[in-house]
């Protein structure tokens, strides 16, 4: 991952982890983790994963998938709404130390047959740093 994408991701994760409402919904800290094949899914949790071209130019958009594993559709909806509320903006915003965009793109419900009642919802976001001062629009 390039340095800029790295910093954007770090800034966004810091914001998600610091949000009190999201912390309450997820039942504590340490529930937002990087997706890893070597560890079992914990419920509730939010896993993140970068996808797409992460080796291109450092200013390129990076795509992030958040996988929500939440018991119950209502709680899952609340977590999703909170994440989207504190992330997506139509204008640029400060993400950690870098100005850029976080855009919500898409979501889908996935099967999670191993644990009935657990909702697995994937949310797609894109992160992009502002390239020039002319793109530096603020809300």
């Amino acid at each position, binding site marked *: 991952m390039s340095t800029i994408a790295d910093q954007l991701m770090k800034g966004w994760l810091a914001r998600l982890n610091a949000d009190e409402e999201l912390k309450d919904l997820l039942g504590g800290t340490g529930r937002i983790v990087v*997706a890893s*094949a070597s560890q*079992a*899914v914990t419920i509730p949790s939010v896993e993140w*994963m*970068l*996808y*797409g*071209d*992460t080796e291109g130019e450092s200013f390129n*958009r990076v*795509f992030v*998938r958040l996988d929500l594993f939440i018991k119950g559709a209502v709680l899952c909806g609340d977590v999703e709404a909170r994440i989207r509320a504190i992330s997506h903006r139509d204008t640029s915003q400060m993400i950690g130390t870098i100005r850029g965009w976080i855009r919500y793109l898409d979501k*889908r419900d*996935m*099967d*999670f*047959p*191993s*644990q009935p009642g657990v909702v*697995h919802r*994937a949310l*797609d976001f*894109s992160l992009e740093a502002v390239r020039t001062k002319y793109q530096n629009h603020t809300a």
Partner: protein
Amino acid sequence: MRVTVYGDHINLAEELKEEWQPVARQAAREAGRMLTEEVRRLLRLRQGRRATAAPEGQPPELDFGNLLDSVSQLSVRMRDTSASSGVQVKHEGAARLEWGKTDRKGRRTFPHPFLRPALANVEGPITRMLEQRFDGSTATSRTDEDVVPFRGSGS
């Protein structure tokens, strides 16, 4: 996954439609070709072996080429003031690779998306290609955004 070239919601006179349709058909075919080529490029990025796999979140490795062979361009579909083309993948494991999956025992297949990144990569070039093709033919003025009457959209 389709790329659609669509006109604004206006009733084109028949003669204008006749003039627009061949241009739109060609543009949609070109956009579909660009998307298909990008999908194929991503699928060729990593040469693998049967025992290895691409990192999670990255396009899958090319092992036997079955997935790559199943990629084809959709023929152009004309519908009133829209023309669309795109890419289709017939391999049965394509959806599992694109989105990931969890089985009954809780074993997970992590996603290796190759369609959405391809669309993201060619979105800009396709939009520029469409602007160039239609600029001056039917547009009366142009700004940075929506004045060019025929635009491309990915879906």
